[in-house]
C-alpha cells in the first residue's frame, strides 16, 4: 500500500487513541512549515549475547563485525572502553543485570522468580527523556517499543524481554507483531490533513476519551469504600495512572495544514518466531514502520530489540541453533558471524534512515540519534567491560567527528555517561543515576 487511503472509521480508531496529541502534531507541523528545524529523535537498538572483541575493533580499526557499517561509516561513532557497572558491584554477570543497568542506570531491584530476574527500580532513561524533553514529547505515540524475536534461553526473565520501563518495575514490553504496529500507525494518519471537519472530529475524540477517564475515576472512588484497606495502595497506583493519562490529553489545540504523509508499503506479513531468516523479515517490517512513523512525525522515541537478552534465536546456516548456548561454548567464529549478521541488517536500517527525506528537509538520520547496544560485552565470560556500542546520527543531533572509533578506555566511563552526553541534544539533562557515572564524554556531541 502506498499513498494512504483510509476511511473515516479508520481515523476514528486513531482519534480514540491519540486525538489531542494529534493536534499537537499538527501544530508542530505548522511550525516546521514556517521554517523551524525538523524534529529530533532517539532510537535504541539492542542485539543480544555480546560480541567477539577482536572482530569488533581490530588493531584500532573497524574489524569484520563492524565492516557492514561501511556504507554509513560517515554517520557512525564507535565507542570503545565504555563499561557497565550494575549496583551489585560485579564486573561481569548476567544478561539481565546488564540490560537493566544500561537502560535505567538504576540499582538492581529484588528478583521476580529466579536469582537474576531483577526488577528495575527506576524508569528507563528513554522514558525519562520521552517525558521530559521538550523536543521528544507531545507526539501522538509517546514512544514505540518494538522487537522481532521474543524467546530467551532457559527462562522467561523479564529484564531480558524489555528495554523500556514506564516506572520502577513497570516494563513496557516490545510489540513483536508488525501488523499491530501498522494498525496503530495507520489509524493516526488523518486523510485530508487538518480541516474544519477533522478539527471537530479531534475535539469530539478528545471529549470521548476524557469521558472514559471520568467514568474510570468515578468507579475508582466508588470501589474505594467497598474494597478492603489492603487494596488502597493498588488503587492509589491506578489513580496516579489515570491522572497521567489525563495530562496526556493535553491542553489547547491549534489545527493547521499538515504535510502529506503515507503509510508504509506492504509488509511481509511474517510473525515473530522461528529462525534468523524469519526474524529478519519481522525486523524489516518493523523498520519500515519506524520510518513511516518518523516521516509522519507520529513518535520520536523508539526502542527496538532484535531479540531478547540471552536470546536462543537459531542461526542454522551460521552454525548455531541457539545463540545464547553457543555464546557460552565460546565458539568465536560462529559468534562473530552472528554479530556480523546483526551489523549487516542494522546497517540496512541505518541506510534507510540516511536515504529517507525528513519532514523538515534533509534526511531522517540527520535528526535521529541511534544507539546500538548489547546487554553484555562478550557472551562466554559475561564481561561488563568495554561494551560494543555504536552511535549513529547527523548534524541535527550534534554527533561530532563521525567515521571514527572513539576510545575512552581508562577514563572510567559507563553507559550512564553516554546518556548524560546526549541528553542535552534533546534540550534536557539526565543524572542522579544509582549506578556509577563520571560525567559526559568529551568531544562526542556539539550541543
Amino acid at each position, binding site marked *: 500500500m502506498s499513498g494512504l487511503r483510509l476511511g473515516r472509521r479508520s481515523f476514528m480508531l486513531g482519534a480514540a487513541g491519540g486525538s489531542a496529541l494529534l493536534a499537537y502534531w499538527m501544530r508542530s507541523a505548522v511550525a516546521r512549515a514556517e521554517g523551524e528545524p525538523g524534529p529530533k529523535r532517539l532510537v535504541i537498538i539492542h542485539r543480544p549475547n555480546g560480541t567477539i572483541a577482536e572482530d569488533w575493533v581490530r588493531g584500532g580499526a573497524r574489524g569484520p563485525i563492524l565492516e557492514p557499517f561501511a556504507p554509513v561509516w560517515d554517520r557512525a561513532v564507535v565507542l570503545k572502553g565504555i563499561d557497565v557497572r550494575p549496583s551489585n558491584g560485579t564486573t561481569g554477570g548476567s*544478561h539481565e543485570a546488564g540490560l537493566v543497568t544500561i537502560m535505567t542506570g538504576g540499582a538492581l531491584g529484588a528478583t521476580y522468580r529466579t536469582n537474576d530476574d531483577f526488577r528495575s527500580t527506576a524508569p528507563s532513561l528513554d522514558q525519562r527523556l520521552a517525558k521530559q524533553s521538550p523536543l521528544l514529547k507531545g507526539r501522538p505515540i509517546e514512544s514505540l517499543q518494538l522487537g522481532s524475536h521474543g524467546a530467551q*534461553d532457559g527462562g522467561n526473565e523479564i529484564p531480558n524481554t524489555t528495554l523500556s520501563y514506564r516506572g520502577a518495575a513497570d*516494563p513496557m514490553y516490545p510489540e513483536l507483531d508488525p501488523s499491530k504496529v501498522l494498525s496503530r500507525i495507520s489509524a493516526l494518519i488523518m486523510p485530508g490533513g487538518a480541516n474544519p471537519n477533522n478539527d471537530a472530529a479531534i475535539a469530539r475524540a478528545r471529549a470521548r476519551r476524557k469521558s472514559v477517564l471520568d467514568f474510570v475515576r468515578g468507579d475508582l472512588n466508588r*470501589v474505594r469504600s467497598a474494597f478492603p484497606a489492603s487494596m488502597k495502595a493498588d488503587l492509589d497506583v491506578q489513580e496516579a495512572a489515570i491522572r497521567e493519562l489525563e495530562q496526556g490529553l493535553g491542553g489547547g489545540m491549534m489545527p493547521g495544514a499538515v504535510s502529506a504523509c503515507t503509510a508504509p508499503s506492504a509488509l511481509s506479513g511474517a510473525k515473530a518466531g522461528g529462525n534468523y531468516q524469519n526474524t529478519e523479515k519481522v525486523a524489516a517490517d518493523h523498520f519500515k514502520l519506524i520510518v513511516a512513523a518518523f516521516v509522519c512525525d507520529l513518535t520520536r522515541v523508539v526502542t527496538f530489540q532484535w531479540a531478547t537478552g540471552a536470546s536462543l534465536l*537459531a542461526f542454522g546456516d551460521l552454525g548455531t*541453533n541457539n545463540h545464547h*548456548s553457543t555464546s557460552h561454548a565460546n*565458539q568465536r567464529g560462529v559468534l562473530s558471524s552472528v554479530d556480523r549478521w546483526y551489523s549487516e541488517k542494522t546497517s540496512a536500517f541505518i541506510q534507510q534512515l540516511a536515504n529517507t527525506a525528513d519532514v523538515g528537509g534533509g534526511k531522517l538520520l540527520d535528526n535521529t540519534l541511534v544507539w546500538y547496544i548489547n546487554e553484555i560485552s562478550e557472551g562466554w565470560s559475561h564481561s561488563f567491560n568495554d561494551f560494543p556500542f555504536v552511535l549513529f546520527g547527523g548534524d541535527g543531533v550534534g554527533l561530532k567527528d563521525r567515521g571514527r572509533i572513539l576510545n575512552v578506555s581508562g577514563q572510567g566511563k559507563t553507559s550512564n555517561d553516554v546518556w548524560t552526553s546526549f541528553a542535552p541534544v534533546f534540550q534536557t539533562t539526565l543524572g542522579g543515576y544509582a549506578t556509577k557515572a563520571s560525567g559526559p564524554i568529551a568531544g562526542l556531541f556539539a550541543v
Partner: protein
Amino acid sequence: MRAAVALVVAATTAAIACTGEIGSQGGLVGGPAAPGDIPGPGGPGTSSGVCKGLSARVSRLTDRQLANAVRDLLGLSKTPAFETGSGGKEEFMPVRPAAVSGGVALKLRDVAEVAAVEATAAGKPAATCAGGDERACAKTFVERFAPRAFRRPITVEERDALLSVYDVGRQGETHAVGIRTVIEAALQSPSFIYLRELGDAADGDAVALTPYEIATKLSLFLRDSIPDDALWSAAESGKIATPEGLDAEIDRLLGTPEVRANVTSIFERLFQLDRISTVAKDASVKEFTPAFADSLRAGTRKFLEEILWGNGGQDAKLKTLLTSSKVFVDKNLAPVYGATASGDGLVAVDLPNRAGILTQPSMLTIEATPSDSSVVHRGVFVLRELLCFHPPPPQADDLAQGDELKKNLHTERARAEKRATIPRCAGCHSFIDPLGVSFEHFDTLGRYRTEISTPDGPVPVDASWDFSVYDVKGRVANSTELASRLAESDAVKTCLVRQFASYALGERLGDDQVCTTAKVKESFTGAEGDLLSLIKAVARWEALRTRDGGAR
C-alpha cells in the same frame, strides 16, 4: 537468563540445611516435622493445630483471566494479548498481578480500544439498534453489558454514569461510537479489573460470598474466564449458592469441550510444560529443534487428554497419571525414543521403562541441563510440585561448592552421593537427591540409557537409593518403582489437594489453611485417586463460597 554455568551450579547445590528452624522461608512449610526422623521441612499439608480460614478479599484478575474475560465479554474472534510482567502467563501459581500503573494502564487502554472497535463493527449486535430509539438501545446495552463486565448487578448511579459516557461518545458520531465509548470505560474500570470475594455482610464470623462471586470464582477455575450465560443465570437466580445448583453447574461445565480443554491446561500448568519453549540444549544435542520441542509438548498434552477424558474418564486416576507406560510420538519423536510412527499426527506407543507423566520425554527434557540429566532439577520438581516442599535457594558459597563437585565427579549420582556426606548440603539434598537419582536412566532428552559416558569411560547407571522422603521409605530401584510408590503415597495426595485448591483460590494456601481442604482430600482418596473427582471436590470446596469475617 543467568549464565549457563551458574544455572547448573545453582541447581546443583541447595545448601541451607532444611531444618524446622527455617520456618516458612523460601516457601518452606512450617509446622511439625514430616513423619519419622526426617528433620522438618514440614510436608505436603501439615497441621500445626491451628486452622485458619480464608479471609474475604479483593485481587486483580491475572493477565490471562483479564484477556480471556475481554474476549468472552465481547465475543471477540481472538484473545487479546495482555501481559504486564506479573509473571509467566501459564504459571500454575500466579504471582500477585501488578497494580494498574502507568504502563499497565496504557496497555489496558490499547486492549480496550481495539476490542471495542471490533465489538461495535457494522452489523455486530452491540452496534445495532432496532426500532431507532438509540438512547433506549444504549440503556438496554448498558443494563446487559455492565453487570456481566463487573460480575454483579450495577447501581442506578453506575448505569447513569455509563449513559453519560454514551451521550458524550454519541455526540456528532454514530450510535456505535457511543457504545464503543461505554465499552472502553467499562474495561478500564476497577470494577472490571478487580475480583471481589467479599460477600454482602460487612462483618461477622463467616461471610457467604454472593451468588455472583461464587459463580465468578467457579468460572475462573473451570473456564479460566468470566461466567458463561448459563452460569450467569444460575447466579442471577441464586441457584449457584445452593448445593444442588452448584453441583449441576459443575457437572454441566465439565461436560463442555472448552472446560475440558482448560482442565487439561491446568494439568499442563501444574507440570509446567510451557517451559519446553524456552529449553536450550547444547549444540551437540542435534535432535533438539523447535519442531522437536513442539512435538514433545503436543505428545504430553495428548497423554494428559487421554488420561483425563479418554475411555469415558475411567483412566483419570492418579495412578495412571503416574505409572502409564504410554507415550505419544510423531515422526519427529519416534526415532529418538526407539519407537516407530507412520503418518502425520501422534500415535500412542508403550515404551518399556516409562512410568507416567514424570518420565514423559517432555518433562525429562525440561528438567535437565543442556547436555545431561539433572538430579537436582528433577528432584526439586517432584519435591515442589508433588510433595509441596519448596527448598530454599542455594547461597553463593553453596554455588562455589557445587562447582568444585563438578570438577572431580563426573556423574550426577557421584555428586549426589558426595552431597549426602557434606552437612551443609545434606539437609535439603536428602530430600532432593533420592527423587532425582531415580531418573538417572534418562539423559538430557529423556532417552533411556543403561550407561553414562564420562572422561573415565562408561559408567553403568545406578538409579537406586535408600529413601526416607515422607512416606516413601526404603530402597527404591528406579523411576518406575518411584512412580508406583508416589501413586500410593498419602503425602502426594495431600499435596495435590493443596495444589489444586491453591490454584482455584488463586493464591498458595498457607500451612495453617490446608486444614480447610480436609473434605476435598476425603473425596479424592475416597474416589481412589480419581482426578476428575479431585477437580469436582475442589470446585465444591467451601472456601470458594464462604469466608471468615473481616476483609484483609
